[in-house]
């Protein structure tokens, strides 16, 4: 085919998958509706709903008082990230969203099919004529806006989840009054994650805080105006509360310009006048945020705004307005509880090495002596309670200055806006307690720059991130050491109940140790962390740094959460929502709702439900399997030709130049496994249909296990049947094996030129067969996904369309590389564009990330 023709075919196939995904979403929504109807008819709650969790817990013997304690502890926080594997443009997403909405309209308005199809044709024409792949790498602030794009969905869905929890509790225990306070919130890394991302500066972070605040305030203003149109009750019919009228009088005295805003509203409509006052103050707050203007009447905090809403609510309740509160006002109060004035808490992330460099420079400026401290002395200094002195920050090098400026910005943020807008400060590649104490020292120093009293130092959560196999193994001893350091204990105690968040990374640990070993080490690390936290009387939140895709910790929500050690959950679920799956989970309110209710359902059940400890011989078996898998995996990745194989048998080079995210994809020259970022690593293996990060090592481990003298399949089958951790491990591997295709992978392998590459291919191909066999024998099935019909059908329907895209990509890679090898010129830009298109198409075709947290698969596996 000529390039022009090939381009058209690849575009067509890419669009085919986008439309297939839209069609499957329609199916999913229809299925949810049918299940809703069936549940209503039968009087029993829908599976994996909030209500079903409450009913199940009640059946297990949980009483109302205990349930209230779990509701008090419940804290769900999805954290949005912008990792560079979202291949689709926002404009394309918007068009697809519109097509989805048109289809939904068509389902309900059959008489208007013709005009809807005309609109669909127009949208498809726009889609065909637009660039499906971004021409340039997006700036960070575009990614921030992309995260904010989901506000409208969340605004609809959040109150619904609160209402469902309240209703479920009331239905289960009608005599008991439950207090349901804030249990759902959102976080974000977009604009805050600077690890390996030189474009995320303190200025970008400042703009991000502003952008997020604007989103929240604009949402509240719109809500306020809706409410103003609804609350037209008159004092002639029902006398409003004197407290409200007093507040209005007081406000008019304090802000005389308010009078003009109130004058068009009848003096008998106190509620509307009160809402006008809220509108005035919210608008003033928005001006402060947007323009930095000093505006009288602006709210100091979301808490102050909540107090006004509470006044309104109390007045309505006292005046027979319970229904009005429940239907109209309470959803808004829930939105304020969830989004405050910050919309999402922004996390900051930076690498431990960067902090150490900054510390050396800061301490050198703080000390008058000429000789710098050696690392041991530095370690001793930061573990003491000595007050850090001020520094001349201008003297820091550029990188350290950036770290310090960010911390200064955070001190301002805490002082001006309180505790909600900052999620935490994450230290990637944490290897020791010193890594955390280093950040604490820098935080104290930043505070000391503008504040003399350290007693008021805000307790910014400092969050160690453990992401290699070694660090996961050491995580609990590092936490133990940290929690034993007096200066750190005092820091945590400032809030009363001490609380520590620890993050565990699924992507890097899987790249480091292979699938099975990472699964097991992550599981054990969380159990040990929970034990250490308990010993120190510290509340623990485990923050799960999962990817959306298989091989990065992806998998259905309920399955993933219910496979966790229950003592490490304890009602708290903080988890990343990676960039590549945001649209799939949060574009449609019904799917977003399903996703959130599954997370809440599973978190409640794993926290408060009955649990069974794994048998001793299962633990022994897992140790054996993990060690065997680790050896096999390391043998592969340490093979002398492995990096060459990865370089040539996947489109990694093209992915690294793909302008799909603002963050550079590459750390530098690839000379070892550690030079590869985990996200493009998984993405590249997925594109070339190997998908080996999600299964490699499993087959050999299982084979070795059953070949030992005293073992057989019955142990593994019992583990699969009764242990959620092992079940999730096998089910996710099965899904990856079903999506992989060794014949297509073999064609990619043919792109390699190193003679030893064939050994790498042989290892992969034989391990694939072993792993496939292992899964089938453990599950006692004869084909993959035999017990998940709909998914098997989906894979079967899609593969015939993905294969030509893969074959096109292979041919294009061959042409690009032969150009590179015969001349020193850059690859032809047309070929590069076509490869990029094929990457986007394959990603859509393999439902990259779709069969993940919100898929109906979880109901198949968990019941």
């Amino acid at each position: 085919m000529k390039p022009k023709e090939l381009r058209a075919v690849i575009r067509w196939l890419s669009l085919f998958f986008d439309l297939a995904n839209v069609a499957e979403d329609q199916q999913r929504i229809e299925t949810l509706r049918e299940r809703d109807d069936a549940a209503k008819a039968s009087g029993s709650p829908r599976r994996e709903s909030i209500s079903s969790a409450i009913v199940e817990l009640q059946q297990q013997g949980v009483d109302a008082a205990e349930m209230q304690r779990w509701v008090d502890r419940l804290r769900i926080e999805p954290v949005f990230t912008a990792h560079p594997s979202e291949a689709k443009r926002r404009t394309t997403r918007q068009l697809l969203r519109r097509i989805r909405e048109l289809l939904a309209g068509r389902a309900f308005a059959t008489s208007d099919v013709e005009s809807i199809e005309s609109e669909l044709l127009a949208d498809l024409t726009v889609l065909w004529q637009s660039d499906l792949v971004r021409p340039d790498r997006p700036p960070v602030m575009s990614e921030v806006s992309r995260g904010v794009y989901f506000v409208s969905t969340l605004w609809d869905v959040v109150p619904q989840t609160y209402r469902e929890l309240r209703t479920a509790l009331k239905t289960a225990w009608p005599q008991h009054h439950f207090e349901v306070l804030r249990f759902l919130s959102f976080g974000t890394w977009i604009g805050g994650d600077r690890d390996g991302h030189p474009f995320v500066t303190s200025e970008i972070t400042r703009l991000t805080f502003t952008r997020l605040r604007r989103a929240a305030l604009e949402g509240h203003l719109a809500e306020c105006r809706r409410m103003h149109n609804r609350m037209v009750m008159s004092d002639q019919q029902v006398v409003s509360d004197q407290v409200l009228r007093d507040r209005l009088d007081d406000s008019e005295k304090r802000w005389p310009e308010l009078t003009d805003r109130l004058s068009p509203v009848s003096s008998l409509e106190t509620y509307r006048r009160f809402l006008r006052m809220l509108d005035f103050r919210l608008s003033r707050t928005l001006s402060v945020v947007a323009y930095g203007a000093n505006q009288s009447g602006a709210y100091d905090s979301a808490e102050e705004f909540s107090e006004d809403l509470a006044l309104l609510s109390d007045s309505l309740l006292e005046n027979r307005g319970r229904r009005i509160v429940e239907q109209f006002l309470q959803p808004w109060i829930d939105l304020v509880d969830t989004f405050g004035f910050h919309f999402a808490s922004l996390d900051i992330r930076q690498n431990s090495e960067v902090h150490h460099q900054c510390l050396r420079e800061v301490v050198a400026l703080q000390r008058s002596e000429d000789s710098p401290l050696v690392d041991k002395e530095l370690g001793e200094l930061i573990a003491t309670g000595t007050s850090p002195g001020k520094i001349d920050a201008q003297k820091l090098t550029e990188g350290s200055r950036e770290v310090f400026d960010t911390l200064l910005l955070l001190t301002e943020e805490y002082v001006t806006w309180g505790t909600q807008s900052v999620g935490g400060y994450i230290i990637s590649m944490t290897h020791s307690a010193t890594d955390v104490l280093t950040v604490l020292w820098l935080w104290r120093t930043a505070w000391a720059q503008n504040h003399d009293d350290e007693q008021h130092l805000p307790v910014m959560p400092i969050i160690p991130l453990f992401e290699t196999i070694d660090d996961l193994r050491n995580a609990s001893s590092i936490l133990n050491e940290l929690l034993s350091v007096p200066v750190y204990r005092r820091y945590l105690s400032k809030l009363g109940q001490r609380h520590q968040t620890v993050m565990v990374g699924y992507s890097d640990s899987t790249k480091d140790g292979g699938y099975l070993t990472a699964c097991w080490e992550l599981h054990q690390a969380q159990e040990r962390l929970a034990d250490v936290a308990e010993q120190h009387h510290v509340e623990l939140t485990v923050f799960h740094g999962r990817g959306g895709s298989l091989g990065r910790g992806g998998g259905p929500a309920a399955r993933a959460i219910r496979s966790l050690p229950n003592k490490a959950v304890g009602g708290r679920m903080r988890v990343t929502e990676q960039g590549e799956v945001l649209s799939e989970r949060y574009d449609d309110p019904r799917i977003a709702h399903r996703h959130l209710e599954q997370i809440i359902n599973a978190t409640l059940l794993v926290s408060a439900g009955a649990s069974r400890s794994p048998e001793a011989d299962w633990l022994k078996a897992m140790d054996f399997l993990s060690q065997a898998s680790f050896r096999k995996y390391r043998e592969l990745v340490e093979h002398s030709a492995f990096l060459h194989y990865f370089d040539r048998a996947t489109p990694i080079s093209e992915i690294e130049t793909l302008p799909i995210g603002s963050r550079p994809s590459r750390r530098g020259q690839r000379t070892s496994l550690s030079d590869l970022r985990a996200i493009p690593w998984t993405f590249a293996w997925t594109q070339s249909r190997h998908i080996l990060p999600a299964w490699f090592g499993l087959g050999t481990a299982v084979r070795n296990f059953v070949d030992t003298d005293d073992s057989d399949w019955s142990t593994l089958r019992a583990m699969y049947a009764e242990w959620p951790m092992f079940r999730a491990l096998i089910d996710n591997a099965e899904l990856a094996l079903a999506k992989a295709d060794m014949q297509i992978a073999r064609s990619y392998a043919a792109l390699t030129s190193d003679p030893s590459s064939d050994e790498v291919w042989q290892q992969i191909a034989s391990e694939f067969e072993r792993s496939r066999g292992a899964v089938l024998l453990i599950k006692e099935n004869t084909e993959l996904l035999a017990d998940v019909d709909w998914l098997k059908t989906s894979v079967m329907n899609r593969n015939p369309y993905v294969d030509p895209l893969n074959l096109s990509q292979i041919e294009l890679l061959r042409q690009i590389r032969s150009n590179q090898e015969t001349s020193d010129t850059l690859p032809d830009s047309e070929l590069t564009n076509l490869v990029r298109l094929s990457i986007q198409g394959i990603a859509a075709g393999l439902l990259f990330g779709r069969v993940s947290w919100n898929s109906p698969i979880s109901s198949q596996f968990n019941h």
Partner: protein
Amino acid sequence: MNATLADRTLDRLIDLLDLVVREQVGESLANTMQRIRRLAVERRAGLPVRMQSHDSSMNSLI
């Protein structure tokens, strides 16, 4: 899970897309895409989940 609605919706959307493709790039290319679609449907009907990826008819498209 009943796949009928998804299949019906997708078929209709692809029919509409084919109309657009005919307008935008002409009959010849649109026919190529129809051919891919037909092949895929045939394979879907005749083959299990694991595909024969080196089918010569697919290769001939490139």
